[in-house]
């Protein structure tokens, strides 16, 4: 079984981002970039499927600038067998990314495609579901447990208010939630080995995909700031303020 894992290069989750003074976007110069944390969970799940003997090959793919090779090398160090970069300098939006991945899937014929549930920059939570619709695959989104038996995939999903289990025919799409697994760290020998693993570069033109965005980002602004309030000295004072000043209890 082949597993395809699309990953995104994003600003590292520890970085406090800054909005550009001209409100044209977020300042990405000299900022640490990483694999989107949910995509890291996706890679980990794919590698575990391979270690369990369920999967035979794990392919990591990114859609973006040539700099994404750095994140694909990380995925190779974490256990992916090979990587593909669909290289574009366009502002790649979810539908265009899903179409590029659909074109790649036509070649790769993966049995399972594992996405992160959302990227921590755009926070869209769209690409996996769009890819599933375009390829006619069923989907198990926000997965906290994945098991495969008898040509079916069972996914436990995190939903509002609890958990839901669905059964999907293969090929299928999974999007990862936090509790699916805890990703490993890449060891130094694996980082060295990753440098020799194959990384192919394709262009959207070769795949016949138009990356032109249909959404225009008019402005990006910092959120309205909340003012800090006061410190109270005791629980008694707190209850008094809530009752008589804020009048919320």
């Amino acid at each position: 079984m082949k597993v395809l894992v699309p990953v995104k290069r994003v600003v590292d989750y520890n970085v406090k981002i800054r909005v550009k003074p001209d409100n044209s976007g977020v300042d990405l110069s000299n900022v640490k970039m990483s694999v989107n944390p949910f995509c890291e969970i996706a890679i980990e799940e794919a590698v575990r499927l391979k270690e369990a003997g369920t999967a035979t090959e794990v392919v990591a793919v990114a859609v973006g600038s040539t700099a994404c090779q750095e994140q694909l090398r990380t995925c190779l160090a974490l256990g992916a067998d090979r990587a593909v970069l669909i290289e574009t300098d366009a502002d790649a939006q979810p539908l265009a990314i899903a179409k590029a991945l659909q074109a790649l899937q036509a070649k790769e014929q993966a049995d399972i495609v594992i996405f992160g549930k959302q990227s921590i920059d755009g926070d869209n939570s769209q690409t996996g579901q769009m890819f599933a619709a375009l390829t006619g695959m069923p989907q198990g989104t926000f997965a906290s447990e994945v098991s495969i038996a008898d040509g079916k995939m069972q996914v436990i999903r995190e939903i509002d208010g609890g958990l839901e289990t669905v059964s999907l025919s293969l090929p299928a799409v999974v999007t990862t939630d936090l509790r699916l697994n805890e990703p490993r760290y890449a060891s130094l020998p694996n980082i060295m080995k990753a440098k020799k693993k194959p990384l192919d570069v394709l262009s959207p033109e070769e795949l016949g995909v138009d990356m032109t965005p249909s959404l225009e980002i008019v402005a990006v602004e910092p959120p309205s700031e909340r003012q800090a309030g006061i410190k109270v000295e005791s629980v008694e004072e707190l209850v008094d303020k809530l009752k008589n000043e804020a009048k919320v209890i």
Partner: protein
Amino acid sequence: MTILVVADHDNAELKPVTHIVVAAAAQIGGDIDVLVAGENCAAVAAEAAKIAGVSKALCADNAAYGHQLPENVAPLVAELGANYSHVMTAHSTVGKNFLPRVAAALDVAQISDIQSVESADTFKRPIYAGNAIATVKSSDAIKVLSVRGTAFDPAASEGGSGTVEAVASVHDAGISSFVSAEIVKSERPELTAASIVISGGRGMQSGDNFSLLEGIADKLGAAIGASRAAVDAGFVPNDMQVGQTGKIVAPDLYIAVGISGAIQHLAGMKDSKVIVAINKDEDAPIFQVADYGLVADLFQALPELEAKL
């Protein structure tokens, strides 16, 4: 302009967030139809037709839609949505699941988690865990939008005089099936709908200690939440998580206990009307957004608070 709102429901009643989506639709303007896709959901459709501002409720009642499987619901919404200028639903786990499939089927972009309507084609939405707000303009013929559940005042549940129309179209892709659901039963209000929320963080030190919050929650009629750190540490289940990757809440009163105030947590609660922080670290960032801060050991402060309420 005509707007199709897809209802969030459990086949018995509407989820309150549907009224918020209708309110967002009303800000865009034009006729509003509400689609109720489900199984034995006629009562829900009747309820939807009564929401102020709704022209008609469309009721697609079939076993294929009973569990909101996106493989079946999305083709239905796309088929109906092709005749509308906007297709909208809640940015809930149901909406997030099926709506991108609708957008892909219609070959248009989706704008997720909108928090304001600037015009019929321009919307504001949070990015980078709410650390920036993007104004996004769509050039697509059909705007597909998911709506943030805390961003609009709900439309009145009475006052509308919409009609109910049955939809016969059945889409059953046959590639997915529902197995089971484990919904946590609770006497307490739902996290995203509660007017008071009390949340615990890593400072709670264990899942057992969350019982210290329960007594207070019961006295206040509050829902109990948690920070991602508390979920990651295994104290409590993920559906209690408040934050950018969990639930977004905006209650009248939010009490953060033993929560340092990481950016991702603040993104999920900073629109609350009044914020209280209880933390023993006086430099914790949570105090920068709190209206009332109490620097104290939570193991002393919580029992005292419960006693004084």
